[in-house]
């Protein structure tokens, strides 16, 4: 199989054994790689608890990884979320995907629970499971210092060790498999780190065809203001969005009580660049280089992080935001859930946290060193529910919402609700057309047509995460161009529609697997606040509460378009049509 190594790795941490297996070609054909392949591999094991020995933790590359295709250095981590109980998948940058593929593997499936802390070392098909007692109790930098600079590594900090429910796996120091608490799955297995290095070749069926596809994509990227423009994310990182979302009056502020924070320029992309003299860096194989690092090596936060540690917590101290981001990277915590849990805590405490208090509580959560830290490490929903105020958790399916207020983008409202992994902006990414005008602009204050748009985009993003490419490229290019790239790499014929069909298969399977854990339409809903409270309007931009009936009507249309039943569940006929009958 061109584009694949045809080999994968199974590791059993209970037995401390590893086995090289043939990558199932039928799964690669049906689910491509990355997220799709991982979801298919987990299958019905999704009903196991996240910390059960049998629960797999999967690291998966895709066919484009380690090729000349733009943004081809990503990989995906898949398991069950300790935070939400849904499927969990995280697309992650850095070098890990490339090293995994060059080490000779398409994916690694890890099961079992070790009786002591261990680490896994992989180099060109050779696998070692070794004692990691010397790494226990260390945060990310401490572990990485001992692992050395070669290759790539995936590490958990104290938050993952102690199974904070939104702990992350940290790749190469500052690329996080962030959402859903997948770090706690690694912690439950007592796997502290994976170190991986590869030098093996990756085969491409049609190098000339791939070069042509790459040039088509690059021409579109160069023409994109959002990517390579002087105000784009290549220049400022995703913090470029601060000013835009602020201007659109949809920046979540004060635990989503408001949608406008007048001090947001204090942490904008421009301000961070001025203050920290940032330079570009990024994932292996990426021409965009959206990651920004300060002149003293400070890692600049992403848009979601600056906005949530900023506006969501009424904090205009950029240095505190950068430090909060550093702490989260050190402990291995999802910044969105951490910041949103803090703002939920502040609301229930009826006060505003000072920057220093915010940093202190992050450390308490990351290390689970205090009662408050342990309480808040469970996420905003469990915390607010225990306090008798579940409505104060601004989450969907228990996953805290990111930094786009749904009252300012109705497609985003629907996409948050229908997302298979909970309140996530990346499943359908409607910000692309509702805010960034790509591929064309849609009316952000209307549900008209959004049900089908969201369904198509969910399918598309499932494909992107399975290839595994970067979503930012799709502000400029489309599956039309990427179908040419993946066809050239694999030697199989793909087009936009065949890829979208695969995306549908992945999305519906995820939905079905969630249903095995009891998720229904009742979980596809937004916090009440959005239906009863206004946002922060200006004379030109009116931010009304969402109309409940319009939302429910759009959701109902969405189920119908998906082929789900009235409870929002895939029917047997749909599963059979998509070739998913074996999962029933």
């Amino acid at each position, binding site marked *: 199989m061109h584009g694949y190594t045809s080999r994968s790795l199974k590791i059993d941490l209970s037995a401390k054994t590893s086995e090289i297996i043939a990558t199932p070609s039928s799964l690669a054909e049906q689910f491509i790689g990355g997220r799709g392949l991982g979801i298919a591999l987990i299958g019905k094991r999704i009903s196991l608890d996240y910390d059960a020995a049998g629960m797999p933790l999967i690291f998966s590359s895709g066919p484009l990884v380690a090729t000349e295709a733009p943004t081809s250095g990503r990989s995906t981590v898949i398991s069950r979320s300790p935070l939400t109980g849904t499927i969990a998948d995280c697309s992650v940058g850095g070098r890990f995907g490339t090293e995994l593929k060059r080490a000779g593997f398409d994916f690694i499936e890890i099961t079992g629970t070790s009786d002591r802390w261990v680490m896994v070392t992989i180099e060109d098909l050779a696998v070692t499971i070794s004692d990691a007692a010397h790494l226990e109790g260390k945060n990310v930098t401490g572990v990485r210092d001992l692992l050395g600079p070669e290759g790539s590594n995936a590490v958990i900090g104290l938050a993952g060790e102690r199974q904070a429910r939104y702990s992350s796996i940290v790749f190469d120091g500052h690329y996080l498999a962030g959402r859903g608490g997948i770090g706690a799955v690694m912690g439950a297995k007592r796997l502290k780190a994976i170190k991986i290095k590869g030098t093996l070749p990756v085969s491409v069926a049609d190098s000339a065809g791939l070069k042509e596809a790459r040039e088509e994509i690059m021409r579109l990227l*160069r023409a994109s203001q959002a990517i390579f423009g002087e*105000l784009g994310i290549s220049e400022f990182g995703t913090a470029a969005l601060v000013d835009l979302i602020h201007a659109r009056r949809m920046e979540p502020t004060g635990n989503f009580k408001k949608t406008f924070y007048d001090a947001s320029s204090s942490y904008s992309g421009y301000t961070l660049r001025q203050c920290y003299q940032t330079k570009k860096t990024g994932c292996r194989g990426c021409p965009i280089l959206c990651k920004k690092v300060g002149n003293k090596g400070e890692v600049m936060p992403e848009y979601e992080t600056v906005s949530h540690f900023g506006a969501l917590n009424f904090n205009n101290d950029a240095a505190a935001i950068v430090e909060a981001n550093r702490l989260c990277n050190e402990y291995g915590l999802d910044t969105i859930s951490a910041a949103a849990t803090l703002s939920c805590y502040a609301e229930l405490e009826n006060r505003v946290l000072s920057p220093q208090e915010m940093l202190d509580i992050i450390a308490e959560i990351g290390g689970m060193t205090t009662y408050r830290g342990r309480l808040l490490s469970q996420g905003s929903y469990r915390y607010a529910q225990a306090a008798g105020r579940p409505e104060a958790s601004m989450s969907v399916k228990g996953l805290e919402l990111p930094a786009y207020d749904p009252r300012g983008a109705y497609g985003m409202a629907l996409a948050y609700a229908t997302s298979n992994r909970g309140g996530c902006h990346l499943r359908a990414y409607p910000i692309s057309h509702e805010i960034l005008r790509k591929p064309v602009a849609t009316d952000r204050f209307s549900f008209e047509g959004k049900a089908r748009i969201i369904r198509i985009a969910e399918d598309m993003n499932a494909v992107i995460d399975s290839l595994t490419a970067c979503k930012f490229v799709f502000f400029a290019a489309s599956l039309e161009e990427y179908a040419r790239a993946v066809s050239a790499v694999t030697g199989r014929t793909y087009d936009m529609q065949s890829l979208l069909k695969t995306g549908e298969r992945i999305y519906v399977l995820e939905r079905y697997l969630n249903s095995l854990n009891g998720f229904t339409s009742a979980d596809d809903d937004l916090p009440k606040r959005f239906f009863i409270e206004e946002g922060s309007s200006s004379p030109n931009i009116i931010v009304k509460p969402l109309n409940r009936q319009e939302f429910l009507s759009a959701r109902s249309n969405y189920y119908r378009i998906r082929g789900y039943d009235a409870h929002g569940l895939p029917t047997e006929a749909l599963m059979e049509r998509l070739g998913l009958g074996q999962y029933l």
Partner: protein
Amino acid sequence: MKRLIDKYTGKLTHQGLAGAENITLLCLDAEVTANRPLTEVNPELLRVFDLMNINALLYAEPEEPYKSIIRHLATREKDRLIPNDCENRTFLHDIPIISDLSADTLSRVLSRRKAAIVGAQGIISFGTVSPEQAFVSFSSVCFSTFVKFFTDVMFHLENLNAGKLQRDIALLEAYEEIIKFIQPAFPACDAISKNPPQNESEVVRQMIVAGKELVERRLVDSNFGNISYTFGDNIYISQTGSSLDELETCIDAVPLDGSSSSGITASSELSAHICIFRKTGMRAILHGHPRFTVIMSMSCRKDWCDLSTCYSSCSQDRSVSGIPIVSGEIGTGPSGLFRTVPEAMAKNRAVVVFGHGIFSAGIDSFGPAFELMQSVEKSFILEYFNKIRGLI
């Protein structure tokens, strides 16, 4: 969805791209909505929705001259057209040609490209987000085939006169038929102010008026082209993908000192506009794609040229009717036009970009910039037909 269907059906007719009776525009959310009763819609078009994960489908027989142009091009080329203009080489890549309107064939080609020519008489396109995508692709095919036809005629005659090939009788007969539909008119335009705006709201108002006139006079097609005005510390510029006749809510105010990135939604030519202002001090800048300006910009085929790089890196010092022609790609890449156009604008108030379009500027109002763009198109039309007459 009906609102969007009416909007884009109206645009197709108003811009002379297709007659209302020849348009089928379908949108799908939970139900199909159309610009005509579904009983009158070809069932094969409806069946495309079963085969493709899309939400809009547009099929129409274009108006003249596009109808005759695509008939000729589709007859001559076998399975696809490759645009000659730079913008559509980037956007469309190529345009497949198919012979039948069956759902299976349509879904096969539209799974690979944004639009196709059907049966030498119609154009089909689609959207996954909005019918606007279908409209933009349709309009782009019309523009692109127009430019291709007239450049192909020019190149053929140049080669014929150089003794490099035989006379293409079909092409030249088609040319004689098609030029009957070309009746350029350039009435005076009084709507655009020759006076500088005095405040921000006046800036926006003048931009809205200038944008509408550019579309009305066919100096831009679909959502291409852009417009800016520098006032105070900001450059006001049309947003990316905005239709210049609908700028009311599509203008970004971008601080010149770069202190806000809210203009991340600005036109992809923001850098070019800023550089032109900085280089020349001219505040009112228009960028359009007048057709014969684009065609004549490619009127240069030297034997030693690598034609694949003319768009990005032509080293020749060229001009047509005294207007400089420079190379340069869209956006901010290493061969981006923001590197070439501002330099040329320092000596001229209008500069043409090879295979792409024209930038024109006024010191402090849009009136002179608009008149200049229109006069360049007018002189390039004369230049084109004089050249063809000479070659024939």
